């Protein structure tokens, strides 16, 4: 069957409607804000002229109308945030105390279920492993690489190679790595990992079926994506270390090792914290990798995938919402840590 371009036309039409809506909303808003104030300005001008002609005292300047302006500038954002984020978040919190059809209050049952059900406890443990490992390993790789290629020849190219996975979707990255982990029962191996194992004299394995190893193999994918982010931010921080400090240390005969631990690390501490925090939060919410690579089977499930399954596959809205709320609760300590750090920096 050939690809039918005509069948795709409604999509382009819809896209065009979207663009027209965009122009209408944004353009209309700006136009409105342009026309209305100039109307008021003209009226005030007329008042001033009339007042000066008749000799009556000038009318008092009307109060600043900035508030009204600001309201319209903020209106789309505030409206969308309220409808799309604030109200839903509150409703999700309420739903987490209700049953699957969201008609009866069940108190803490959904939360109790989370910690009682073996499969969900497994999910929580897996998420914990992810959050502990990914930020550390990704930051370590990013940092080592940033230090190693700093001021090297081909630095830009070398950095792009590591940074590139950031542009690849989690789904794409998962397929790339599933191919690395691929297994064939007979004949040549087509997966790189099994080929390496075979050429070292080992037995090929179905890597992704083997718990708990498979969770670590999925973590590799996340590390692979996030290391580039860590590398870019840390590399910028390293370049911002004042040259005279580095020079002074070098004149004192510091070794590369000492330089790394005594100069580099303390100087880029704030950037390090930002990177670890950002990656931690991204890791907590990891969904695509687990879904694409194993679909949460073989004991690899994490909170975000389980939340999706509960709420959208099993229609267990209460339990799904409870998992979402729990995810949110897990983010909070990380953010508080980050804020306290920022404050310390400002004071220090």
């Amino acid at each position: 069957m050939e690809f039918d371009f005509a069948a795709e036309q409604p999509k382009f039409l819809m896209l065009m409607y979207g663009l027209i809506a965009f122009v209408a909303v944004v353009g209309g808003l700006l136009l409105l804000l342009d026309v209305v104030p100039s109307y008021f300005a003209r009226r005030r001008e007329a008042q001033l002229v009339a007042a000066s002609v008749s000799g009556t005292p000038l009318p008092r300047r009307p109060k600043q109308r900035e508030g009204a302006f600001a309201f319209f500038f903020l209106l789309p954002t505030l409206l969308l945030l309220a409808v799309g984020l604030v109200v839903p978040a509150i409703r999700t919190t309420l739903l987490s105390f209700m049953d699957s059809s969201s008609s009866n209050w069940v108190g803490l049952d959904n939360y109790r279920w989370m910690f009682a059900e073996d499969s969900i406890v497994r999910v929580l443990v897996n998420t914990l492993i992810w959050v502990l490992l990914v930020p550390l390993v990704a930051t370590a790789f990013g940092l080592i690489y940033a230090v190693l290629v700093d001021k090297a020849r081909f630095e830009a190219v070398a950095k792009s190679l590591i940074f590139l996975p950031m542009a690849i979707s989690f789904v794409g990255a998962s397929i790339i790595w599933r191919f690395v982990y691929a297994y064939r029962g007979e004949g040549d191996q087509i997966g790189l990992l099994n080929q390496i194992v075979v050429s070292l004299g080992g037995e090929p394995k179905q890597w992704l079926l083997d718990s708990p190893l498979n969770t670590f193999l999925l973590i590799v994918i996340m590390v692979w994506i996030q290391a580039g982010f860590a590398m870019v931010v840390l590399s910028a921080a390293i370049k911002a270390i004042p040259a005279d400090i580095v020079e002074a240390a070098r004149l004192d005969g510091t070794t590369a090792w000492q330089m790394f631990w005594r100069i580099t690390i303390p100087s880029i501490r704030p950037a390090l914290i930002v990177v670890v925090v950002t990656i931690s939060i991204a890791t907590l919410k990891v969904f695509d990798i687990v879904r694409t690579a194993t679909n949460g089977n073989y004991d690899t499930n994490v909170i975000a995938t389980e939340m999706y399954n509960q709420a959208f596959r099993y229609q267990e809205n209460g339990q799904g919402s409870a998992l979402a709320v729990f995810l949110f609760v897990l983010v909070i300590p990380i953010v508080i840590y980050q804020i306290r750090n920022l404050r310390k920096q400002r004071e220090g």
Partner: protein
Amino acid sequence: MTTTTPTVGVGAQATEPTTRGARVRKRLNSRTATLVSVVIAMLWTIPTFGLFISSLRPENEIKTTGWWTFFSDPQITLENYQEVLFSSGSSGQLASYFINSLAITIPSVLFPLAFASLAAYALAWMNFKGRDWVYIGIFALQIVPLQMALVPLLRFFSTGVTIAGVQILPAWDLVDEQKFAQVWFAHTCFALPFAVFLLHNFISQLPGDLMEAARVDGATHPKIFRTIVLPLIMPALAAFGIFQFLWVWNDLLVALIFAGGGDETAPLTVRLAELAGTRGNEWQRLTAGAFVSIVVPLIVFLSLQRFFVRGLLAGSVKG
């Protein structure tokens, strides 16, 4: 793999090591450093490279031999791409999903860009009561995981808003390609907190004299926004635009929930995840399909990397 051998320690020439032992050690150090960085670079590129090579090999070859045999027995075909892009339903039809990805991504980038820059300008340069609180509120919303919004937002689309039995807003009742609107809406909402934060960082650092001068000349806020602020924050807009583009193009979760799985609306990521699930061993399709989904963000990313990095640094370090 290109043969990059980044060497370290440019500064080494500055202070000539005195003893012979020190010189040897230094050279060893830089040797190890080079080796480590090359190993890391290879670990990070070989998987993608292998996938790319495989996508060009005939189906039978992919399934029976490793992609590295390509170098001893090169066979190239574009058939995988032909099949996965244009063939009928079950084996790919990715061209259709590619269009969906485009139709989802473009408005999902434009809307938050416009709304957030308006809001960021108001929060940075207008005086009104409670300004700081509004900003802190939007800033804080960044930490709410979008999982918190999914269930109620989907209900908002499918059943409308009912308060105490009174229908306040009707259901959207969208079918087929109209569902794009839901995805645009969801992506716009979820993007706004970060967008406002990032653009506010830039806009608030514009020189205040400029605004003051314009206002003395009688320019209204919309005029200042259009003629002065917008041209000046182009780099920031580009940075956020790329960021949002990559995010939306690569997103799976939001699309899965709000676009559905059909070929009328689902983007590439949803289709690929489905192929990976149901046809996990059809590597000729998966490799070519993965590459189709990767190529657009890769081009955007490589051509605009400068802006992206700048935005990333502004977003993560300054805050």
